[in-house]
């Protein structure tokens, strides 16, 4: 076989957390000495994290994949003919496009992830990048908003509010605000404070395809009349920070961002703002306070951020995935996006398989398949090989689902009916060794640590919640404590200012309801169950 001319080594956080950096260095030295004509490209990741580090070589038969490769295995793989596209090594996976786990996905938003060099504008354009923006530059704001409305796109951060309606509100909002130094301005704020455990889709967008997010934000700006955007990024993502900074600089240099974009006479400035470790800043009003340089305290609504958001001005606050879906929608049309999915859950959702899972990673699918299909067909069950016991969907504020609920269809309404949430699409699998009482306790503990403290049910309720669950575990007046816990959950749900306190009862109640044994509740003593 002929020598290959390009080798790909991913550089997303997960690949690097498993040795991709060391592999790239070793491989770089090898190429310099033995194959100076072979190019080493640091691509993003395809999100098949169970196969990372996933190496690819470009051949006449397409890109061939090898993985998961450890730094220790690289010399052997090289000796076996990696650079000639060997098909004889145990790590050989076949053409990457034929890997069923990838082939069976419906990738609209993540079509480029892992395919391109995330920072190459040329790669981005070769693979359909900036087509939506070029089109948007010739469209009226109302036409852009209408296209997003037609797509049925709903906020992917968790609340699932229709994006087009939010945009319409900001487009129609007057920006004059006498006395405010920002008067006349509107803002686009990207919520990249992806704090939910079990989620990494935002991170993958930013690390593997940052120009898509930039493009989506510019289009949002054109649609609502905003010329300034912020990406509020959590500090736990140092690599995404680095990639975004570099991408913004390059996009500006290439005239896709900044003043007079592509000679259109339109301006859009973009800035990355780093959070500082507070989970609550993923809640949009806390995020806005944090952006303004304050403590990240939740604001009462109204006023809606769409009317009075960042610095008191009309603001679109959208999640990374919501904005990242926009270039495709403008390029292909809202209807084409709406052709995916079912009911009122239209388009695709990047589900994230995490926790104790054999084949974890990012699975983008149209809404509709069941949770069981996702965790079994794609996930392959637990990594430990033990039976699955509980699945937490939608982050730390999402319910723990028992086997009886795994046939729930993955769409917003079906999950709501089951008393659960899809949230940001995180799916965390636990095997039968999990202690569900400890998980319920942790939900309260997490709320205690991360509450902003503004409202009492959340700030104090979470502390009492930990204490009550400790007493239940210790069998200290258990039946009465279970009643108290149920009451406390009601108080938090109905009395909290935001979803932090309001939804912490989800994991707690579901754990008590579906896994009573863990709380010492036997059929005979079940009178106090929540």
């Amino acid at each position: 076989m002929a020598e290959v001319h390009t080798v790909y080594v991913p550089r997303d956080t997960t690949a690097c957390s498993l040795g991709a950096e060391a592999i790239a260095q070793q491989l770089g030295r090898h190429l310099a000495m033995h194959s100076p004509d072979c190019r080493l490209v640091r691509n993003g990741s395809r999100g098949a994290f169970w196969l990372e580090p996933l190496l690819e070589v470009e051949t006449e038969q397409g890109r061939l994949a090898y993985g998961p490769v450890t730094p220790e295995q690289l010399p052997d793989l090289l000796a076996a003919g990696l650079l000639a596209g060997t098909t004889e090594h145990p790590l050989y996976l076949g053409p990457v496009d034929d890997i069923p786990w990838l082939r069976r996905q419906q990738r609209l938003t993540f079509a480029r992830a892992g395919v391109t060099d995330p920072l190459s504008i040329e790669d981005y354009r070769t693979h359909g990048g900036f087509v939506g923006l070029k089109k948007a530059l010739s469209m009226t704001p109302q036409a852009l908003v209408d296209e997003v409305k037609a797509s049925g796109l709903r906020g992917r951060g968790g609340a699932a509010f229709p994006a087009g309606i939010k945009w319409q509100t900001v487009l129609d909002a007057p920006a004059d605000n006498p006395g405010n130094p920002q008067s006349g301005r509107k803002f686009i704020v990207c919520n990249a404070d992806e704090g939910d455990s079990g989620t990494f889709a935002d991170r993958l967008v930013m690390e593997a395809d940052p120009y898509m997010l930039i493009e989506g934000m510019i289009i949002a700006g054109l649609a609502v009349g905003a010329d300034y955007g912020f990406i509020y990024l959590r500090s736990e993502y140092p690599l995404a920070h680095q990639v975004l900074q570099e991408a913004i600089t390059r996009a500006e240099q290439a005239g896709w961002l900044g003043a007079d974009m592509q000679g259109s006479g339109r301006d859009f400035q973009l800035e990355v703002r780093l959070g500082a470790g507070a989970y609550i800043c993923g809640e949009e009003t806390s995020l806005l306070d944090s952006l303004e340089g304050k403590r990240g305290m939740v604001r009462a609504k109204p006023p809606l951020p769409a009317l009075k958001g960042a610095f008191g001005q009309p603001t679109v606050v959208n999640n990374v995935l919501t904005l990242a879906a926009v270039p495709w929608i403008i390029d292909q049309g809202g209807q084409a996006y709406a052709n995916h999915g079912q009911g009122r859950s239209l388009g695709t959702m990047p589900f994230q398989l995490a926790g104790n899972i054999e084949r974890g990673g990012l699975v983008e699918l149209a809404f509709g398949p069941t949770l069981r299909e996702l965790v079994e067909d794609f996930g392959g069950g637990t990594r430990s090989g033990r039976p699955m016991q509980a699945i937490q969907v939608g982050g730390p504020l999402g319910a723990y689902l028992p086997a009886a609920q795994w046939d729930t269809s993955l769409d917003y309404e079906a999950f709501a009916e089951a008393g659960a949430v899809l949230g940001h699409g995180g799916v965390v699998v636990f095997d039968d060794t999990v202690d569900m009482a400890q998980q319920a306790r942790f939900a309260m503990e997490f709320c205690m640590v991360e509450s902003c403290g503004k409202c009492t049910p959340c700030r104090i309720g979470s502390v009492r919640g930990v204490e009550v669950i400790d007493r239940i575990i210790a069998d200290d007046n258990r039946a009465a404590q279970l009643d108290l816990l149920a009451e406390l959950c009601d108080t938090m749900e109905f009395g909290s200012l935001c979803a932090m306190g309001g939804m912490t009862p989800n994991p707690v109640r579901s754990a008590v309801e579906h896994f009573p044994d863990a709380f010492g509740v036997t059929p005979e003593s079940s009178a106090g169950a929540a």
Partner: protein
Amino acid sequence: MTEPTSGAPSAAGSGHDRLRATIGHLVDTYRARPGPLLPILHGVQHSEGHIPDAAIGLIAEALTLTRAEVHGVVSFYPDFHTTPGGQHRLQICRAEACQAQDGRALEQAARDLLQVDWHQTTADGRFTLEPVYCLGNCATGPSVRLDDTVHGRVSAASLQALIERAQHEPVNIQGLLAVSREVDHG
């Protein structure tokens, strides 16, 4: 990340001047942007390793805020520290996806290996141990972050190896470089 001090009697005075200059530079860089306080605090923390008490008054003065307002912001965010930490910051993920992969055992192993509890610094000043709630590496947990590098599928043994390696390495300066680059572009 604290620069070594000379220990000379005049160090306090010159340290204050240096802090004033650092903050002046950061304020000049960010003042024109809306809501500059968090970027300035990040900048101080990167250059000093923590937010010294003296910085609070200087920042307040420069931004026409009260000391209480600046202090309130510093104390709200887990990332901002008012005392110097260890040379390396080790964060162990305590969130659900890592728990599902036996993260609780790793939490205990970290405390045992370093002989400290959360938010404490080892006696030799090498490591500060912190909990973190998700590093976004949830398909390959349990995960830890040592300075600016995330590690996946960490076991007690690989954590020990990581700690031992870091003990013999110079202090990570990636964070410092990132900030100076940002300031240059600003």
